[in-house]
């Protein structure tokens, strides 16, 4: 193989290895939000403090890193049983509103329900249904033909937050 060809191939390989390894390192910053519940995950530095991989993970995705401190952000791509979200299913997240000062649940690229706009049940619980088709009550539209993820922002009244796992109600 000629030297220039080797050089180009070497640079391409190095570029792929460098970028892929960076994304793998960014992906290691995710942890389960609560013991025993693998559905919600939280992005945080294993060492605490400023973590360039964590910062890069948000900014390279076109988002500012979320606020530190009491405000917390959770993310999930699967239901309570660990099954990836499907666009053909109906899911429910039931939030006990008394525990949190403010919250929002969103499907990125879609709609958002917040504590300000949600309709609460008589027991104080806000039930949010996620489906591609219109649902009564609090409804978040999901894509009908692809997997999706849910992001929850919470301003809690206590230090620890355990987001309710999404339940799959029915499919098809």
């Amino acid at each position, binding site marked *: 193989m000629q030297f220039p060809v*080797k050089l180009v191939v*070497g*640079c391409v*390989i*190095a*570029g792929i*290895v*460098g*970028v892929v*390894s*960076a994304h793998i*390192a*960014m992906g290691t910053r995710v942890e389960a939000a609560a013991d025993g519940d693998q559905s919600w995950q939280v992005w945080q530095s294993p060492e605490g403090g*400023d973590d*360039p*991989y964590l*910062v*890069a993970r*948000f*900014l*390279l995705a*076109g*988002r*500012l*890193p979320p*606020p*530190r*401190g*009491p*405000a917390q952000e959770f993310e999930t791509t699967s239901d309570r049983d660990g099954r990836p979200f499907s666009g053909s299913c109906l899911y429910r997240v039931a939030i006990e509103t008394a525990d949190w*000062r*403010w919250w*929002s649940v*969103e*499907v*990125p*690229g*879609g*709609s*958002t329900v*917040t*504590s*300000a*706009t949600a309709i609460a049940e008589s027991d104080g619980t806000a039930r949010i249904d996620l489906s591609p088709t219109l649902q009564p009550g609090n409804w978040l539209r999901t894509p009908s033909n692809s997997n999706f993820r849910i*992001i929850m*922002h919470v*301003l809690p009244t206590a230090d620890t937050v355990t987001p309710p796992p999404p339940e799959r109600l029915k499919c098809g």
Partner: protein
Amino acid sequence: MRMTSSLFWAAGILVLAIIIHLSYVLFGPRFAMHGFEAEAASYAGGINRMQVLDAAQSAGFFGASSPQAVTAVCAFDLSDGDVMLHAAFSGSPWTLMIYAARGNAIYSVNDAQAGSSEVTIRIRRVTGLTRLLGDDEAGTVNDGWRVETAETRGLAVLWSPIAEPALRRRSEEALRQSYCRPAS
């Protein structure tokens, strides 16, 4: 000879991969952050100016979660000296975040920590030499809290969810009392 050549190429690829890896993680966010700063400056009509974003601007800047909140942004530049940042909110909860040019959050405060609906912060650039020699003015701040950063540029973000969509206008009016300007 062939073995030596292969090792040379493998070592070269490895070193280049490490350089690309580090560049991607360290400089990629700077470029992305520069985009946020430029967008904030374009909304505000320049740097060191605060702008309350309307719902459409906020959605474009922050993504889907923002239409239920009022937000304001200020891209600041400390090249010519300190910048004063004043945030005024109509109610709680609220959060104020200050990001440095490489995207790391250098300061955040919320309503529970501040205990007030208004806060004034002096953003100041400090160099390594300044830190080493000490700061004669330390502890004499009488115009609010102080944030120090080694970076020249950055972005301040004010965020407050609205209790009801109908209250957006009132919350925006309160947030318009906020400012971001060079310290006199």
